[in-house]
């Protein structure tokens, strides 16, 4: 049986874990640790909420069709022909 990761290691890699930027083995090891660790779990929730707030800053362009029309016209002046 593999030894459990310690809290320090988990805290160091918590963001990479939330971003899913770790190997599958490491993701799994951290998941196991978080499931049982009262110290790291609140930290996980804190970071997760923070990242969710950042994700909400995403804004769609309000008029994509107008922009596209303008763009195609500008490109046409460079020789581009849409079809």
């Amino acid at each position: 049986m593999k030894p459990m990761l310690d809290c320090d290691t988990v805290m160091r890699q918590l963001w990479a874990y939330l971003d899913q930027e770790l190997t599958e083995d490491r993701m799994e090891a951290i998941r196991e640790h978080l499931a049982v660790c009262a110290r790291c779990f609140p930290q996980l929730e804190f970071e997760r909420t923070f990242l969710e707030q950042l994700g909400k800053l995403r804004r769609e362009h309000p008029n994509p069709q107008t922009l596209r029309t303008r763009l195609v016209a500008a490109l046409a002046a460079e020789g581009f022909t849409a079809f």
Partner: protein
Amino acid sequence: MADQADKREKDRRFQEAALSCLPDVARFALSLTRDEPDADDLVQETYLRAYRSWDTFEPGTECRAWLFTICRNAFYRMHKREERTVQCDDAELESLAAAAVHSSAEHAGFGDVFARADLHEALEQALNELPDQFREAVVLVDVQDHSYEDAATVIGVPIGTVRSRLYRARRLLQERLLTYAKDAGIAPKEGPSGLERNP
């Protein structure tokens, strides 16, 4: 006649690969300029440059990342912003520092501070005030949902650089938000059940 056919083929590939990325590029431009007319100018500049250098695009590589790189470079050029190099610490140490932010927030009764909907504007402002290099890492990874690797390709730096800039930026944002919450008098929830009052 062959030239005509080549030209048509070029335009067809440009339309398929590049123009189809327009929603992504527009969103990215908007997050860089934060202003719609400026974003439109930036998108146009990006696509004109892309069309002129279409021959240098390597088929099979990711067109979106290529366009983002052009967009980002055009943004710095148009807004005469200098890319300053900011010193970054080790990424994992930034993670640990964020753990310290959490425990101090928890201690002040602000453990759930990021769950508050009214922090949206404060967060946006804090992001806008970050140095460009930090802001773009957050914009690419946290707002636009790119992988570290994609972000590294767009910015043109090693993946480790993206990681340390991103983590530093996140920690700075957290610290600013906490300061904001305290200054704005946002009432903390009950502190950690009387821990501080123990003799």
